[in-house]
């Protein structure tokens, strides 16, 4: 398809970007462009104005913060996947970044863009859910944070920009597993887990309509053990309609696959903990 026509602007700062987004109908944020541009080309999205935030320094950088790790929204997936602090303190987040697309996509695609793209097709959100991370947003009313779980459900409100992902540090007791669609490399199913003193946190996407924490499974597995049989049984106890058929894959298979991937992730996280 031929890309539709739109206007393009590069604001000098976040305030200008927010003003443009708030004041223009059909304005959209352009960061890495790895989700938005294909969607525009395919006619799945439309935009009248692209507000390019790629050069805004205030959205860059990864560092420690009071809550754990602060990941600037413009951090590329490649940077995130290789970042020493993230690898050490939030390994499921690094692995999820690494699981996105191919090297070209990871070199351009950003953490904020991946979260904002939402839906079944993103890897980072599932890691953010398992990590109990928060998403920082900027809008006309200033900056605020929302839990990643809430963000995964509602997305970024119109006129806002994702500015950072705030991830609690976990040490190594976290893992991510994914089966990629061979055409898109989007997750057929991806799971992220984090083992905390209160029990495991388990999130799934691909097999479900959007990234979800599976609290029922978590409850059933509290205290372990994380044997494959136990995890599969915990998944089988979930309501059938939780899992949604994908292209060429049944809900039945996806529910099973989610269990297998969660079991593998839990076993790896558990080993790392021990």
């Amino acid at each position, binding site marked *: *398809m*031929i890309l539709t*026509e739109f206007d393009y602007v590069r604001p000098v700062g976040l305030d200008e970007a927010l003003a443009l987004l708030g004041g223009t109908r059909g304005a959209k944020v352009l960061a890495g462009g790895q989700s938005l541009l*294909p969607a525009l080309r*395919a006619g799945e999205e439309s935009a009248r104005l692209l507000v390019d935030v790629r050069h805004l320094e205030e959205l860059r950088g990864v560092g420690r913060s009071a809550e754990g790790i602060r990941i600037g929204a413009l951090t590329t997936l490649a940077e995130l996947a290789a970042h020493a602090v993230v690898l050490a303190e939030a390994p499921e987040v690094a692995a999820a970044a690494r699981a996105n697309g*191919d090297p070209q996509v990871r070199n351009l695609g950003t953490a904020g863009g991946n979260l904002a793209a939402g839906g079944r097709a993103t890897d980072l959100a599932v890691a953010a859910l398992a990590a109990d991370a928060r998403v920082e947003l900027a809008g006309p009313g200033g900056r605020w944070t929302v839990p990643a779980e809430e963000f995964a459900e509602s997305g970024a409100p119109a006129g806002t920009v994702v500015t950072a992902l705030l991830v609690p540090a976990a040490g190594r007791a976290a893992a991510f597993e994914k*089966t990629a*669609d*061979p*055409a*898109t490399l989007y997750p*057929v199913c991806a799971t992220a887990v984090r083992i905390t003193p209160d029990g495991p946190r388990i999130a799934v996407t691909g097999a479900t309509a959007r990234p979800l924490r599976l609290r029922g499974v978590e409850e059933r597995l509290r205290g372990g053990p994380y044997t*494959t049989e136990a995890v599969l049984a915990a998944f089988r106890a979930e309501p059938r309609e939780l899992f949604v058929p994908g*292209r*060429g*894959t*049944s809900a039945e*298979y996806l529910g*099973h*696959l989610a269990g*297998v991937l969660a079991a593998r992730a839990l076993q790896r996280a558990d080993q790392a903990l021990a």
Partner: protein
Amino acid sequence: MTAVTGEAPLQGSGVLGRPMDSREDPQLLRGEATYVGDVNLPGTAHMAILGSPVAHAKILSIETKAAEQMPGVLKVATAADFTDVMPLPCIWIPGGVESHFPPHPYGLPGARPVLTGDSVRHVGDPIAVVVAETPRQAAAALAAIAVEYEPLPVVTRADAALAEGAPQLHEAVPGNLNAYWTCGDKDRAEAALAEAEVKVELDLVNQRTINSPIEPRGAVGDYNAATDEYTLYASTQGPHNHRFLLAALVLGIPFNKLRVIAPTVGGSFGTKGYLYPDMALVLVLSKALGRPVKWVDTRTGLMNSTVQGRDHRQHVVLAGTRDGRMTGLWATSYANLGAYPSTIGPGVATALMGRSISGMYEIPAAFCEVYAAFTNTVPLGAQRGSGRAEAAFLMERLVDRFAAEIGMDPAAVRRKNLVPNEKFPYDNGLGWTYDSGDYQVNFDKALELSGYADMPARKAEARTRGKRLGVGIATYVAICGVGPSTRMSQEGMLGGTWESANIRVNPTGEVTVTVGSASTGQSHHTVFAQVAADELEIDPAQVQVYEGDTLRAPYGQGTYGSRSYSMAAPAVALTARKIKAKLVKAGAVFLGIPEEKAVYAAGKVYEEGNEENAKTFADLAMAMWYGWGLPHEIEPALDETTHFDPPDFNYPFGTHVAVVEVDELTGETEVVAYTAVDDAGHIGNPKIVLGQIEGSITHGLGQALMEAAVYDEQGRLLSSDLTKYALPRATDVPFFTLGKTTTPSPHNPLGAKGAGEIATVPPAAAVVNAVVDALSDLGVQHIDMPLTPEKVWRRLRGEAQ
């Protein structure tokens, strides 16, 4: 080996056979090459094509007025505007049998009109075109064309299309049957099956796949009113062929008024030798508008218009003895030709498949029957390895079934039945006479390289990791070197299939080679320079290669079926010999010695026994340019041409071994090792062939694991872009273990056999054999491709296919 062409085998300087770097790759990798999409002539207008959104319907009306009013629109045209343009012809028909085609005014088999006016027969069937100032304007105006359809029932499977009461596609094709075609000995095969100690049968689906070259097709038409000449720039693998067919059989214009230029072509896999409506449309519209008209396809457009591959549904039977001797082979195949016959599709689906089914095995009684039928899908054509891959798939699946049935090692069964060396040339009883081969050596080498003997230990080790390891062997013979023109005419080819080369020695001593073939990415410029340099014993850097422009190149048929190195390269070598002979004759004159005393070596002519008395290649080139002092019987200049038509085809072959690991919990299949030992005779440039082998294997693995053109019941292609049609990536395949054997073909002076596509032939069979092996203890006998994780998982759970 004595060449039956009567030509001496090649004995050149040794440049040929060296792994020289491709000359073309740097431009391709840097994005500097010029594709059709880069051809921007002054004043170009842009064409967009309205393809049908429905698979089968009568067209009741087409309303174009609104589109004509859209910004930038220059012309909106429908079938009514092209009444003097003939339908595209079909030029490879099922040979030797009754066949039915849509009409063509010359009484030839017809394929399709350039735009359809009465009915649409597949999604994407071209109905109308818009020409506008920009591509965007042309595309936007398409949406304003209103077409009223009367829906007709849809059929997408060949077997269903032949059933009583099936929707009918073409008035001239009763029951949708293009042809019932057979080869081999039916009575003997029936008897062999009836008398067999053991008989195994399989129902196979060789699924439809979509050719996915990086560059979709494109065409630029440029009519010159002052000279009444047309120029077509197109992504074509056969510019001369397209020139002939378009001028003589479609446009009805003099041959010498059409020039066809193939710029760089970004891959083809067999799709770009076909006639497509757009090629004629841009030419006619350029004349109508007095401007160049350009069209470049999109990926989704390609998937709904460019010929697709494979698509056979088969019932196959192998008969044999308890001790592993194969005695009979039977294949019944329903071939899906799509909505219209493509330019050579019917031949691909019949002869290329049917005559190849017995592969490397000596089977005394073999028979193949093909029902080739029209359906409401995109026309079928070649795909890399076409016909031969489908043949190898059925044969190699049967061998594994047979081996399992009699409890014998599948390698041992194969080895026992290989055509022995003393039987060459070997008549396979299905229509092919294999030229040469040493199958045992090739087979054993592949088994050894793959570590076949260690597989039981590897299987046990894999089980400790939750993996089921499986090993699959597939051998093949892939007819190439199309070919002997007269023989091809008996095979239903309505045209010549020879090839050509011209060599001009420049006055300054450099050499220009021009071939009739046209590369779609096979590094012709590199290899043909090596061929000429080797024969002339000069530096290949002195040799420049041209092709792809009908104004400059000698007549030739293009590249397809891995033919250029065994068809065009021999023409280059034979032409170089003519040049050399003339240099010796003229050199003797310039050296003042009798001709029999003149020796050609290392690019020089010298006096035998007196090497001081010599003329260099450059000296002679200049002397021949001046022509001073030449006797009457020696013409000045060095400019020779050869048209090469071989005595028969060539038959490369090989053995592949796939090792897979199937995840017991998820059903995911990983190809963990892959060994290929291919025999393409003498190879001109091993580095280039290595790339082709690796690409071919990857291509074949794609069909096994992920590729599938999926049509819904309404005939809509669901897998219509690369987010829905999976292609294998580098990360989906292991590092290959590659070996080769070398059995020269006697059918050309280079001893060459086809190479470019041959390794696409066995991988699908090898991988399916490996996965079935991994699941054999569960009673699994076959799994249809592609082997998606869920499909395998269900079999792991004991579900039936």
